[in-house]
């Protein structure tokens, strides 16, 4: 057979347009992710004058015992936090999915409250509860809350909702048939738990462990406020960069922090893949059966956890209104007069809201569109799969590392994009990039649920792809868009790590103001500012919920199935 050169389909107008967009996305990824991260590595092998010094900075790092101790500290914090939060959240998720206790939806919502707060908030609250002038300091039995104990409790509070979500998903995918068989065989319930429940949820639990560990070792806010003498890696980055202006050592610490993060991240991806392969089409969903004693026990547990969550949030709220803790407990709004405080201002709060709105609106549009082009373009398979891979890189990049990378990259006078440094633009960009992965996965999942042949049908009807996108793809994905929007808003307004190196005089934001006021000793105003973030996140969430219901009622009518027979 004559081997003529392989046939290449001509590029249609749609193909060319989509190719152009994909190249554009690749360029943005290069500028916003790859190049900045590369500069971190570069800085870590340079001296202050920018000359290559090999591993000299690393040698210096490992010869400083105070710094090396942080590696150990970080791992310990990660492990202890993970063990505690997984245990607490597992029982909570078990109650939500496997018991018949009342008010499940209420308890589900309560468990999500910490999502609305920066990790700074539990730390501040704990100081009011267990600090030197805390109202429950006797419970510490002479131990210091400032230090590892405070860090762990704050992180457990803050990571709790993330883990509850993951574990309830893992526990709710159980196959009811297995439990029926176990019952028919008269298996003891303890044995059923260890032989059926745990193995089925195994990968979900492991995945949740890795996620908890990741959050714990990369957190900055809680460690900053309540760490005291105790140092961890993310805090070292901040101290080296902001305190000592030692950018080289800061980047060395960043690279060292990246190591456990990347390892944990890869392990988590592996486990997650196994988890999804477990659900078979024949599975029957598990329906818990009422059991008075067990249900009551679970209810009491959930009430206890909820009380603790509310106690922490309530303490911060109360402290923010108290005139002068603990001497004058009368209530006032003095602490909310941010303009009178060092490091804080109402301007910072307004900046936070504006930044979060920009992040949510621009981020939703950009992330959804790029997910669309990556998922639904017919050609450019290689480019699309590499972009898809790169979209998970942000999830494995701690906020502190990303922030420092941006500082190096965009603060460089040679960079033509230098003008965005310390402006609202870089804050929004950093937030979108930092929180890119989860919305990208949400968008991709939504797009994958659409019939793969929509684009083929449109091509046969000679309708350009953007019309199908606008009239079909986008309207169907409104629920996903709405989820992405609120996720971006809440994470942007509560985050501090990615932006702590990037804000300028006019672009200070609320979460950073909390750090700075706390640093200056204005703990009550810091609590007030942290509460402003919570109020805002909560308010926006409620408005978002109402709006979503309204919009879905009016645009998703087609989802109501009403089958007529043939």
């Amino acid at each position, binding site marked *: 057979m004559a081997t003529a050169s392989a046939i290449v*389909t001509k590029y*249609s107008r749609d193909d060319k347009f989509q190719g152009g967009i994909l190249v554009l996305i690749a360029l943005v990824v290069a500028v916003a992710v790859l190049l900045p991260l590369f500069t971190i590595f570069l800085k870590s092998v340079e001296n202050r004058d920018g000359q290559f010094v090999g591993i000299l900075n690393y040698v210096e790092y490992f010869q400083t015992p105070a710094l090396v101790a942080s590696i150990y500290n970080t791992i310990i914090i990660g492990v202890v936090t993970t063990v505690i939060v997984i245990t607490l959240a597992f029982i909570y998720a078990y109650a939500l999915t496997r018991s018949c206790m009342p008010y499940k939806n209420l308890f589900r919502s309560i468990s999500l409250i910490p999502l609305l707060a920066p990790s700074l908030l539990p730390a501040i609250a704990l100081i009011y509860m267990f600090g030197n002038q805390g109202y429950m300091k006797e419970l510490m039995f002479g131990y210091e809350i400032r230090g590892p104990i405070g860090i762990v409790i704050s992180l457990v509070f803050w990571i709790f909702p993330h883990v509850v979500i993951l574990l309830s998903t893992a526990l709710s995918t159980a196959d009811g048939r297995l439990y029926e068989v176990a019952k028919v065989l008269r298996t003891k319930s303890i044995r059923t738990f260890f032989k059926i429940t745990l193995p089925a949820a195994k990968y979900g639990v492991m995945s949740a462990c890795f996620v908890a560990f990741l959050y714990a070792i990369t957190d900055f806010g809680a460690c900053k406020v309540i760490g005291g003498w105790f140092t961890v890696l993310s805090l070292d980055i901040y101290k080296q960069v902001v305190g000592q202006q030692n950018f080289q050592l800061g980047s060395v610490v960043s690279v060292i922090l990246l190591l456990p993060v990347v390892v944990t991240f890869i392990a988590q991806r592996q486990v997650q893949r196994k988890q999804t392969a477990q659900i078979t089409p024949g599975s029957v969903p598990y329906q818990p059966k009422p059991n008075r004693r067990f249900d009551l026990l679970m209810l009491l547990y959930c009430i206890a956890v909820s009380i603790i969550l509310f106690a922490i949030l309530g303490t911060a709220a109360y402290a923010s209104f108290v005139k002068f803790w603990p001497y004058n407990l009368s209530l006032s709004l003095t602490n909310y007069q941010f303009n009178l405080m060092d490091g804080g201002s109402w301007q910072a709060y307004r900046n936070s809201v504006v930044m979060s709105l920009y992040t949510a609106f621009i981020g939703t549009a950009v992330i959804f569109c790029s997910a669309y082009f990556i998922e639904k373009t017919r050609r450019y398979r290689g480019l699309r799969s590499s972009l898809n891979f790169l979209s998970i890189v942000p999830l494995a990049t701690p906020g502190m590392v990303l922030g420092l990378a941006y500082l190096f990259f965009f603060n460089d006078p040679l960079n033509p994009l230098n003008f965005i440094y310390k402006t609202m633009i870089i804050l929004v960009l950093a937030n979108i990039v930092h929180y890119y992965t989860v919305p990208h996965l949400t968008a991709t999942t939504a797009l994958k649920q659409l019939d793969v042949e929509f684009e083929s049908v449109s091509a*046969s009807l000679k309708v350009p792809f953007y019309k199908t996108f606008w009239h079909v793809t986008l309207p169907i994905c409104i629920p996903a868009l709405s989820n992405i929007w609120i996720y971006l808003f809440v994470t942007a307004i509560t985050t501090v790590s990615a932006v702590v190196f990037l804000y300028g005089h006019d672009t200070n934001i609320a979460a950073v103001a909390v750090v700075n006021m706390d640093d200056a000793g204005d703990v009550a105003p810091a609590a007030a500012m942290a509460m402003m973030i919570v109020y805002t996140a909560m308010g926006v969430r409620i408005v978002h919920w109402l709006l979503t219901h309204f919009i879905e009622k009016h645009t998703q009518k087609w989802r109501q199935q*009403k089958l007529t027979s*043939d």
Partner: protein
Amino acid sequence: MSSSDSYLLIQNLTKRFGEFEALSQVSLEVDQSELICLLGPSGCGKTTVLRCIAGLETPTVGTIVQNGVDITSLPPEDRDFGIVFQSYALFPNLTVNENLGFGLANRKLPKQKIQERVQQLIATVGLEGHSDKYPGQLSGGQQQRVALARALATSPGLLLLDEPLSALDAKVRQRLRREILDLQRKIGITTVLVTHDQEEALTMGDRIVVMDHGVIAQTGTPQEIYSNPTTPFVANFIGKMNFLDGIASGNGEVAVNQFSFDCAQATETLSLGDRVLLCIRPEDIVIYNSDFDNNEINCNNAIVIDTEFLGSVFRVRLAFEESSSTEFIAELPPSDMRSLEIESGANVSIKFPPERLHVYLA
């Protein structure tokens, strides 16, 4: 038929995915207004052929000419076809009306013209009264009709149907087969239908292309394919067939066990000693009472092993002699069963009519 007057001309179509050859040297001609069925088991490459015609796959080698134009390297947007997928791919958030108007709206036609055409399409497929419903509110059969109407909306020159009926119940499927066929005849659109359902292919196709492992096994009218399958694969895939191991014993005869059959009318040229498969369809076997004269051509004694009642026919399992490993199946109407008094263990005479025998080299 010469290649110049066929509407769709496929030559040497080959598609490789890495080492795997999904299609190899597929050539095919489809006449204007013809309905051709690509039939084969899953993975035989029939859908790949359809996707190559649509431009959704690029063939590795080969040419596709539609209406005199070489379309091999054109993107789907620049080709002229309407397509119905197995999933229908109806836009779920658009009403029936909007789904049908979707391709028309892009043609810069006045709104009123679009509405006229949509109404006409709705009437054509019998969906009056459903135009403002969403696909999710329609039954499977109705959705199928919307998909068909949408594919026809822009009056394409070629209709591609990819397993269009496989998602439906058996009864609805039978009715829609008829409807699609009537519609196709009425508007005279050249159609390529992909199916794994032999009954669908036999009842709908003007011609059938049977595919196996990426190559065309046989092309022909339904009758040709059924009565003269050219390979054991086609014989086995379409309808039911008895396969008996035999050896060519010269003079156009084939020996099965110690019995000899006259196969002079079968097409295969045999030389003495060739191992062959002697094939006959169950309904072609003639059964007589055991006192029938066995000297007639291709007649033999046989013993009934058991019978199976299938409603309109009986299926009878037979062997030439007791405890023989060579078994075969005959099918005959209940009236014959009664008159011949056939039951398990009965001795009968059977005849393999020479003109009904097929022989393939084993």
